[in-house]
Structures are given as structure tokens and as C-alpha cells.
């Protein structure tokens, strides 16, 4: 990217070398230095492990009803001596184990939904930006129109007609969220198309396919990854809302949103059934947002040299915020 060169070129020579020699180790060090982002990343990692290995790691069977241990509060011990970190629900099922299994559903909906809408959106956006013309006009009109419509409402209506469930949720999310990716992919493509390296690739006879796949896309990865991370958070929240209203994940599958909906009936006696799954959603979305903010700062050519160089000088430039 030419933007990197101009920015780093403006720095003192010593810094220039360091900023150019960006390695994975430098990224890891930068992550360690930013404590908030580091904690968020660790949290997300643990969450992924917990979700993927829920069947091995969960202390109890999430669907095993134990009527002798109903409504055990968090950190409580049931009469049969079983310890429950986050308490139990109305059927005596261990809430912590249920949260781990729910994480699997919520996280996979977030990841798959973002992945599918990302693939559709990026493909359309890049093609529109690359070929311009009628395709671009039509696409951008569709994007503007769809962004102006209330997506939750439309999601509800479609799910009402085609029925709820995991696969339908992914379908709906793809249908209603591709525009976000398409818009960004198009504007990135338009930016890069002006660059000399694209002209050069064309001059030596690179095919369109080759230019898009090996030159354009790799240069667009970092902003798209930031967007992808943010979209996962948005989708996890949407899934929770739809499941809460009864149009998302259906029993016996369970997601965090559905758990809140169930816990609502016992809100006056067992607060933890509502608080814990919601807190799980909150922390996950928060961690995703924080990691995205960090990734944006570190991949931004204007900002990143500050993160990637050791903080030893006294007169560091003022942080202008993203």
C-alpha cells in the first residue's frame, strides 16, 4: 500500500525501519502491551475453547434434569453435594454447563452468519468496484435501499413465514447483512484500483481474475477482518433478540438469547437465570468490539507504528483516537 510508505517515510529513519519490519512477533508484543485488548483476546480464546469442547469440558450434562437441585444459587451446593458455579435452573440443570453449550450455538451462528454474508457481500462489492457500470449502479441502489429498512422487522417476518431454526437464521443473516461488506469491499476496491501496483499488474498482462485474487483481495484483508469481527458481535446480539422473541433457535437446542427468555419466568425468584446468559452475551460482544478496535488501530498505517515500536521515548506524540 502506498499509504504505508508515505506515512512511514515521514518518520525518523530508525522508526521507519522498525515500522517496516512488522512481524507476527511485533503484533504479539503490541497485543501484550495493550492490556484491555489482550484480556479481550484471551477471553475470546477461552470462549472458543469452551464452546468447541463443551461436551468434554462442561462439569455437568447440560440437559440432565435433577429435581433435587432446583434453583441452586450461584456458587451454591445442591443437597446431593454437587457444586454449581453459576447455580441451576428450574429443572436443576447446571447453568454453567448450559452456558458452555449455548456458547456453541451463539458463537457458531455469529461466525457462520458473518462468514456467509461476508462471502456474498465481498464478492458482489469487489465485482461492482472492479467492473463499475450498470452492475455497480444496481448494487449500490440495492445496498442503500436495504440499509434504510428495519432489518430486525424483516428478519422476524421472514422467519415467521419460513419457520425458525438454525439454518434459517443463517440464511436470514446472509440476506440482511451482506450489504455492510459489499459497501466496504466496493470502496476499498475503488481506492486500490487507482494504485500503481494494479496498473503494473495490468501492464504485465495479468488477467482480471488474477488481479482480483492475488493483488486486490490480499490488500483489503485487514479492514475487512475488523468489519468481520464487529459483524460477529452484531449477529450474536441479533440472534439473541430473535431467539428471545421465539423466532430464533428452538428447543432442544439452546442459545444464550433463548436461555434469557426461559429465565424470564423466574425473574423474581432466580435472578441468575436472566443475568448470567445476558452477561455472557455482553462480555462476548464487548470483547469482540475491543479486539476490533485494537485491530483497527494496529492495521491503520497512520496509527500502527506507535503500537509496534517500544514505548521508550518520553515525548510520544499525542494519541488522536481512531
Amino acid at each position, binding site marked *: 500500500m502506498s499509504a504505508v510508505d508515505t506515512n512511514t517515510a515521514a518518520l525518523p529513519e530508525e522508526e521507519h525501519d522498525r515500522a517496516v519490519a512488522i512481524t507476527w512477533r511485533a503484533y504479539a508484543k503490541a497485543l501484550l502491551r495493550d492490556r484491555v485488548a489482550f484480556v479481550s483476546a484471551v477471553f475470546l480464546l477461552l470462549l472458543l475453547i469452551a464452546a468447541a469442547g463443551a461436551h468434554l469440558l462442561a462439569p455437568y450434562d447440560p440437559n440432565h434434569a435433577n429435581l433435587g437441585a432446583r434453583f441452586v444459587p450461584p456458587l451454591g451446593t445442591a443437597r446431593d453435594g454437587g457444586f454449581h458455579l453459576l447455580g441451576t435452573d428450574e429443572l436443576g440443570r447446571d447453568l454453567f454447563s448450559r452456558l458452555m453449550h449455548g456458547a456453541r450455538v451463539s458463537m457458531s451462528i455469529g461466525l457462520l452468519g458473518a462468514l456467509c454474508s461476508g462471502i456474498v457481500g465481498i464478492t458482489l462489492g469487489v465485482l461492482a468496484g472492479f467492473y463499475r457500470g450498470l452492475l455497480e449502479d444496481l448494487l449500490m441502489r440495492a445496498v442503500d435501499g436495504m440499509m434504510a429498512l428495519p432489518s430486525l422487522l424483516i428478519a422476524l417476518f421472514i422467519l415467521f413465514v419460513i419457520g425458525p431454526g438454525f439454518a434459517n437464521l443463517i440464511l436470514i443473516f446472509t440476506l440482511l447483512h451482506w450489504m455492510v461488506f459489499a459497501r466496504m469491499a466496493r470502496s476499498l476496491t475503488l481506492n486500490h484500483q487507482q494504485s500503481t501496483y494494479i496498473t503494473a499488474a495490468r501492464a504485465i498482462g495479468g488477467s482480471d481474475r488474477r488481479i482480483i485474487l492475488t493483488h486486490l483481495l490480499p490488500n483489503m484483508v485487514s479492514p475487512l477482518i475488523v468489519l468481520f469481527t464487529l459483524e460477529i*458481535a452484531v449477529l450474536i446480539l441479533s440472534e439473541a433478540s430473535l431467539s428471545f422473541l421465539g423466532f430464533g433457535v428452538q428447543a432442544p437446542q439452546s442459545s444464550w438469547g433463548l436461555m434469557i427468555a426461559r429465565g424470564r419466568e423466574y425473574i423474581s425468584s432466580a435472578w441468575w437465570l436472566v443475568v448470567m446468559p445476558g452477561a455472557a452475551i455482553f462480555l462476548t460482544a464487548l470483547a469482540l468490539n475491543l479486539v476490533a478496535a485494537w485491530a483497527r488501530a494496529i492495521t491503520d498505517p497512520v496509527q500502527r507504528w506507535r503500537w509496534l515500536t517500544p514505548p521508550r521515548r518520553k515525548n510520544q506524540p499525542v494519541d488522536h483516537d481512531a
Partner: protein
Amino acid sequence: MPYLLRRFLQSLTLLFVLVSFVFVVGRIIGDPALIMLGTSATETALDQLRENLGLNEPIWRQYLVFLGDLAQGDFGVSFRYGFSMMPSDALRSEGTPVLPIVLERLPATFLLAGTALVFAFALAVVLGCLAAMYPRSWIDNLVNVISLASVSVVQFWLGLILIIVFSVQLGLLPTGGYGSWQHLVLPALTLAARPLGRISQVVRSAMLDELSRPYIAAARAKGVPEWRVVFVHALKNASIPIVTITGDELSQLLTGAMLVETVFAWPGVGLLLIDSLGRRDLPMAQAGICVVAALVILVNLAVDFAYTVLNPRIQMDNRGGRA
């Protein structure tokens, strides 16, 4: 074509697309008779309903009839709303026109969304301005934390937490319902959280921009009091991004109200819509969706009109309208 006229036509097109979408999803992807009567209905009942609703006509004809009815404000009749009998019995009666019922619910939603927006906007402007006046202070950090938390939290969960704290534990406010100002407090607070976070962030960054401009230094040099510099001189010029985000948030509020109304049993359009989906009341659900979506489109249009008032430089020729 003048800019505003073009925006108006765009909004009309969007409305038309939306209505057609509702038709396609309701009639072509789904089978209205099956949606309304459920899978347990007998074939005779289904046939009778198809006959009554004119579903045996060719699809293009149904579409034209549908559009014609909508143009006259006829969204169909509900066989579920206010009927306690079996759905198949209800079919023999006349049914209740749905549009008046939806419109009847609008004031409650407006009251809720309006209160939430006014509260969020006022607080966000004050917080955002203070954050811009004292960068890196505790109030600046507070604004950052609020805006980050507000995009990470699920609204209905926040509402339930408020119920646990203020209704169940402290017993100060009712858990839900409608009627007095006490009923309004918790749902409005819940709904205000998200716009508060988003708007205050935008106010902060827009004000930071404005406060660094030469005319601010000039105003200060003339001896204008600082509060006047910030809240009159700078705020006025920072108003365009603030109006944009507030308009966006208002349309978000109209749909967000759906969840909050469900949590607090607030009798607005959102609760009606969710209930009718649960009752498989297709005409009522369609009317609710069309009305809410039309409001959202209207709000977006109003925001664009507000632009031209706030900034006369935005005129006829910027292609495509707002991003």
C-alpha cells in the same frame, strides 16, 4: 430534478419495494391459509379461507388487488384479534379491519420512543460536549465506556436487569404495563441506552473537530464566555453529524421498541406485532410491519429535509442522497 423531490421519490420507491416484499414473502414463499390456520387445519377449512381471501386468483391479479387495497388503506381483516373462538369458527364472522387497530397503538409507541430519544439526546449532547471540552478527563472516559457498552448490550436484557433491580429488589417501579409516569420510566431508560451511547460518541468527535477551528479561537479572543462558545458557536456547526446519527437512532428506536415493549408489556405497535406473529395473525402482522417500516422511511426522509435547513450548502446536485 431538485434534490428534495428526488429524495421523496426515492422514499416512495422504497415503500413500494417494501410492500411488494411483504406480498412476496407472505403470499408466494408462504401459504397465507396455512400460516393463518396452522398445520392442523382441515383441507375444507383451508379451501374455504383461500376462497374468501381470493387466493385462487392468478398471482398477478392478487398482487394488483393487494396494491389497490393498500392504496385505500385496507390492510385486510383479522380473524384472530378480539376473537376467543377457534380460528375456523372465526372465519364465519366478518373479521376486524386491522389498520385502525395498528394506528390505535401508535401513540403508545411514540410516547415511549419519544421519551427515550429526548432523554438520550439531551444527556448525550451534554456529555459529548463536556467530553470534548475536557479530553482525557474522567467524563471523556465515561463517554467512551457508555458508547462501547451500549453497542455490546442486548436491550431486552438491560430491561430485565432494571426490572430485577428496581421492581423486584427495591420495589420502586412497576414491572410493566401502561398508564402512569412510573410505568414509563424503566422502558424509556432501557430504550435510551443505545442512542445515548451512539449519539454522545458522535457529539464528542464532532465537537472536538469544531473546537479546534479558527472561528472558535476568534470567539474566545473576543471574550465570549466559554459555555457560549461551546454550546452556541461550536454546537451549531457540529449539528449535521449529530442530526444524522439521531435520525438513524430514531429509526432504530422504532424497531428496538418492539423488544422493549415485549419485555415491559407496553401496549404499542411492537407488542401488537409480536403478539400477532405469535397468534399467526398474518393481516395484522403485515399491517404492523408496513406501518413501522413506513415510519422508518419517513424519519429518514425527514432527516434529509433537516439537512438542507441546517446546511444550505447541501443542495440539488449531490448524487444519491445520504450514504
